[in-house]
């Protein structure tokens, strides 16, 4: 287990060729502002376990980029304390099987969470997300955007719970999957468990192939069908770049998304 106290920006490389199981525990210091990037790379089946405690009034951004060329399981748990602000992003663009099990606990009043995932799936990707508002006046936004390529499968199970007594909390989830063709499979299961009255909760989900009217619109300006489709697919995945408050990293991720879409959409 690697234990790290975070109070500034840090980058970690998880090399699956060295360790098949990696355990990290992060403590994000109170009132600090920090951004952490985990890049998973290598060519072995692996498990990455991550425990994060975000202390009160901390401003925290975490990005996990999966470049592993084999199956990966990620188990992550976040405990978010009073008036902390956390943005958690996952970029799943590698085309291999991945399971991400996420637990988000908003433990004290004022905790804010935004989750943003982008997945380009050629294999099988599953997100199991469980967000629990344990205290009042907490807020969570979980946004999953994915494109499922031919013969791929993407499965999203998103559960938001507001416990009894967590007055004034709001919890929202949006899941959107674009299936590339008829052989691509997308599944979305949105779940809301609400045990208090004075709250706001919503879910939105959409699943389907690219919109013909959008494709026609782009084609009518001279883009071929393939070019129009790529633009729409990139558009599905780019929102993740907007949550990263680092221009260099944002551009790097944007370039990676464009490159992966070019590779994936010409398959």
């Amino acid at each position, binding site marked *: 287990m690697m234990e790290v106290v975070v109070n500034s920006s840090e980058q970690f490389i998880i090399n699956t060729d060295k360790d098949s199981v990696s355990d990290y525990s992060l403590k994000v210091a109170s009132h600090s502002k920090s951004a952490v990037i985990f890049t998973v790379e290598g060519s072995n089946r692996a498990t990455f376990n991550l425990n994060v405690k975000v202390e009160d009034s901390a401003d925290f951004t975490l990005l996990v980029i999966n470049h592993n060329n084999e199956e990966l399981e990620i188990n992550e748990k976040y405990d978010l304390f009073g008036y902390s602000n956390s943005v958690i992003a996952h970029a799943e663009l590698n085309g291999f099987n991945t399971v991400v099990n996420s637990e988000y606990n908003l433990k004290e009043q004022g905790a804010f969470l935004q989750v943003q995932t982008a997945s380009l799936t050629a294999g099988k990707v599953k997100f199991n997300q469980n967000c629990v508002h344990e205290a009042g006046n907490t807020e969570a936004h979980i946004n999953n955007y994915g494109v499922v390529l031919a013969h791929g499968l993407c499965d999203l199970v998103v559960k938001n719970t507001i416990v009894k007594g967590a007055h004034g909390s709001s919890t929202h989830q949006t899941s959107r999957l674009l299936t590339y063709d008829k052989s691509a499979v997308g599944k979305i299961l949105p779940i809301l468990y609400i045990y208090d009255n004075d709250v706001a909760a919503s879910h939105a989900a959409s699943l389907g192939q690219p919109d013909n009217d*959008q494709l*026609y619109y782009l*084609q009518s*300006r001279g*883009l*071929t*069908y393939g*070019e129009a489709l790529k633009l729409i697919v990139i558009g599905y*995945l780019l929102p993740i770049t907007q949550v990263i408050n680092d221009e260099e990293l944002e551009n790097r991720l944007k370039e990676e998304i464009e490159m992966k879409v070019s590779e994936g959409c010409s398959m």
Partner: protein
Amino acid sequence: MPTLKIENLHVSVENKEILKGVDLVVNPGEIHALMGPNGNGKSTLLMTIMGHPKYTVTEGSIYFGDQNVLEMSVDQRSKAGLFIAMQNPQEVPGVTNSDFLKAAVNAHRDEPIKLFQFIRLLDKTIEEVGMKSDMAHRFLNEGFSGGEKKRNEIIQMKLLKPSLAMLDELDSGLDVDALKVVADNVNELYRENNMGMIIVSHYERFYELIKPTHAHVLVNGRIVKSGDHELAKKIDAEGYEWLIKEQNLVVEQEEVVKRAISLGSCAANQRGKAE
């Protein structure tokens, strides 16, 4: 500009015939006003010329010069110089205007445009149509007002410089000042390129700003009357009633599709749209 020649065009949507034998010739520099009651095939004609897959041509031909338009894909039609400013431009979340417009400009060029050159061209065009400079970085038409969407259509038209532009109710959603800006830009492009145009509008005010050389009335999927700008003025003043009597026509009513809606929040939203 090549001449657009449409002969005996029959078009169906989901096995319902909408156009029932349209003939139309648009020569370079001609501006054709296309009028007619709602649901009689005006937008269908424009969308078919541009190649929307929903519209099936069952009979007839469309030639642009010596090119058989019906054998061309949508993007090939654009590259050949055809352009449609749509009545309801699509919103494409995640795709910035800037990325889309650059891709569109490059699709019409042999060599990709240099980034600096493109930015300068885009900034200038955005200013000319009176939009805010941040539109370039916003997602394509997402969250745009009706007027902004229409101005964005004009930005695209100015960047692509078509030989034949089809404007489908471009004036709807525009206030008086915006209408003038849009019309000035269309007129400038018309003068520069000797562009042909087909304009669908219900309002003489727009035809006063972009003066048509020809006018046609489309009823029940056929052009039943052709003339010049005076015809558009007469229809604006007197409506279609005189024409319907003169031609002894029975106007087929537009079908209103009603969907069964179940109760619940999504149904409430659907009801809101339907109303």
